[in-house]
């Protein structure tokens, strides 16, 4: 979210007296572009959430909250009611890590690694994905958000993708109302650049096969979903380089960190 939009958001929230929760797991995992001030730094009333999951170890389930004292007091009460307290062992590990390890330096290397992996993933998307697909170009975080033609159902494709040895998060999992059926979230944080390329290549093959099926069923009037206005392309061009589009970004794709449109 740009600085200008953040300001607008705060103004609207202030006008209608709406509390803002700034869930910021990826703020420290920006590997490109310029730092954008947090909402919390712009308004002390914002409830800010941070986590060690993305900068140290997700398995510890450790996080922090910066918020006005009355809120913290109530939250503390709820937390004690829900689980007494966070594991003392996990807290001790965090304390040791952040006091004895040069974690800024570790994070510096991690960001560089994520950037290389993002580049590998997007490079592979450009090389292998059909031109009907569009995707984000994140400047941080761990994910690329890919959108396929409107009639495509990524949840249905999951089985074929798993059979090909590739997993992703279907877009519907990222929306509360069932939207996002034609989108999917691809993670680039864990796998090597080589495996990311291989994964995208396999996924592209699955997508291309399914696109052919969709086209066949649409042409026969056997699909209830809306027919795409985007032109299809011959099967033989599936592996040709494709340009990313950014319609999804303009709409705002959920849960993938800071992004900006690719230069298409």
């Amino acid at each position, binding site marked *: 979210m740009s600085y200008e939009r953040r300001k607008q958001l705060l103004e609207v929230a202030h006008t209608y007296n709406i509390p803002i929760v700034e869930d910021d797991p990826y703020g420290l995992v920006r590997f490109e572009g310029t730092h954008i001030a947090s909402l919390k730094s712009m308004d002390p009333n914002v409830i800010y959430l941070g986590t060690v999951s993305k900068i140290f170890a997700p398995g510890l389930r450790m996080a922090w909250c910066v918020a006005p004292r009355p809120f913290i007091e109530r939250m503390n009460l709820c937390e004690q009611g829900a689980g007494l307290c966070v594991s003392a062992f996990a807290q001790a590990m965090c304390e040791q890590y952040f006091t004895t390890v040069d974690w800024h330096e570790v994070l510096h290397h991690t960001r560089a690694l994520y950037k290389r992996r993002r580049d590998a993933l997007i490079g592979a998307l450009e090389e292998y994905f059909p031109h009907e697909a569009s995707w984000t170009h994140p400047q941080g975080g761990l994910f690329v958000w890919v959108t396929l033609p409107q009639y495509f*159902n990524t949840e*249905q*494709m*999951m*089985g*074929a993708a*798993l059979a090909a040895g590739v997993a992703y998060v279907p877009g519907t999992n990222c929306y509360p109302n069932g939207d996002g059926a034609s989108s999917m979230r691809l993670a680039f944080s864990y796998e090597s650049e080589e495996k990311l390329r291989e994964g995208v290549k396999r996924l592209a093959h699955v997508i291309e*096969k*399914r696109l*052919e*099926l*969709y086209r*066949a*069923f*649409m*042409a*026969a*009037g*056997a*699909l*209830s*979903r809306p027919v795409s206005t985007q032109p299809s392309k011959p099967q033989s061009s599936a592996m040709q380089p494709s340009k990313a589009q950014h319609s999804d970004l303009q709409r705002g794709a959920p849960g993938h960190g800071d992004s900006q449109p690719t230069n298409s």
Partner: protein
Amino acid sequence: MKKVKVAVIMGGASFERKFSLESGKVICDALVQEGYEVFALDATEDLVSSLQSARPDVAFIAMHGAGGEDGTVAALLEFLDIPYVGSAPEAARVSFFKPALPFVLHRLPQAKNPHILCPKQYSLDEKAFRTLGAAHALSLAPKHLGGFPLVVKPARGGSALGFNVVHEADKLGDALMDALSYDDEVLLQEYIEGIELSIAVLEKDPGKPQALPAVEIEAASGAYNTEARLGHAAVKHHCPAQHVTRDMQELAASAALEAYKACGCKDLARVDMIVAHNNIYLLDVKVCPGFSKTSLVPLAIKTAHMSIEDVTKELVQRNIRTT
């Protein structure tokens, strides 16, 4: 006295992995209860080394879907010379491929009963749609299959994954896309409105399979889909069946035995069918049926005044080599 070692093989990489893990746990617990030394083995790339290290006296195949029910693991166990509970690879392959059931059933000389049928069906490979223009002939489906609704499902696999009852022509593509998410071949089948029965066939004594009491499935939505199978949707199981006459229950039992024999099954299988118009319509033979809390075979076992412990023990004992 040395304990008999049993390897329960479960999981694997099929779409039905989670169901298999549930079944495997129930079988493991039962065998432990009976005093066996049990190894729960996930069917991963380490399976062979795990089997060679465990050196079981017998293996129990508790896998659902591809890898297990298609005979892959049974064939591997034969190659490793490990006796196992479950059907032979050839029987598993035939049973796993749903379009083959009418074919194998009617090749049996005893399959002359005009009241034991299979629904009319067509199977089509995805290549037929992608490369041969089969989608343009889809309007033939309701004509050949008695109109809408009709059933679309993958040609292989279970747990109702990719199963859809289609009521309108413009939903056929969606259903086919769903089915083709689980297999490259899809079955278009006549919809038989009737009472769904599931009958477990148990072969405690070699060559003498017996049909257990039928489980009648009454799904509120009308379809015994994945949600219903997982207990997430309203479904009632009646065992013995409540809305089927005694004569039809006897016919259903003989149909189950016939299907079991036709496919060449061994030890245990579950045969799914519909009772309608005084006929039995056979749908599916599962050589590795579910054993979880919401599965049908444990219910049939209980109704037959047996326990899962008894059944698993008997199946293990009959497969242990004595020499």
